């Protein structure tokens, strides 16, 4: 079974530029999560999707971050414009469904450096 795929693995941009990350969850997984992991800290949830609907985006900085999962499969996370403090690893995770005991499986992450 293929795992959670993410691309790119690394991205370096200047502040005020835009950037987008892509995630492909495990086949059949209805729930998809985006986490932000700043160096030296644990991951922090940004947004959770159930199929193509948003379940929780309470910690997403909506003035600059956006995310979509149009067909209920792949997802894209965008930052526009980027700030220095957005430098972090962005992790995508998926599970069969939400509100259950299902395990969340993580992708390898995208390391973003904002200069």
């Amino acid at each position, binding site marked *: 079974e293929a795992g959670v795929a993410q691309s790119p693995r690394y991205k370096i941009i200047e502040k005020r530029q835009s950037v987008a990350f892509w995630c492909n969850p495990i086949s059949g997984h209805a729930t998809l999560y985006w986490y932000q992991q700043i160096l030296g800290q644990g*991951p*922090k*949830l940004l947004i959770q999707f159930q199929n193509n609907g948003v379940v929780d985006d309470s910690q997403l900085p909506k003035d600059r971050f956006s995310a979509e999962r149009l067909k209920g499969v792949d997802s894209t996370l965008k930052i526009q414009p980027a700030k220095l403090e957005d430098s972090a690893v962005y992790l995508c995770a998926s599970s069969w469904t939400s509100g259950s005991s299902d395990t969340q499986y993580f992708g390898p992450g995208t390391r973003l450096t904002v200069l």
Partner: protein
Amino acid sequence: AQTVTQSQPEMSVQEAETVTLSCTYDTSESDYYLFWYKQPPSRQMILVIRQEAYKQQNATENRFSVNFQKAAKSFSLKISDSQLGDAAMYFCAYRTASGYSGGGADGLTFGKGTHLIIQP
């Protein structure tokens, strides 16, 4: 809001020895899940072990076991017969069990992690 605290930024253990990583959490919920995840330098977060709060029996997975003290809100991880491949960051995480009734919101809340070093 729930919080997870890992008070040991770094731990070191000799190969083949036993080490215990500490985790405490704060919640007002009675039903929830607790996890230990391992993150090697490659960054892929891997589930090590999970515990359902309603279960009194401590979870075990081969060399990994937990000591779950619900009243104390403590959830420690014991690694027996440590191996070089166990070297990684270890994160304790909390997940509500009321996600279904709450619209499905059940993202993980992580601690800051413990860096485990294995001495050969």
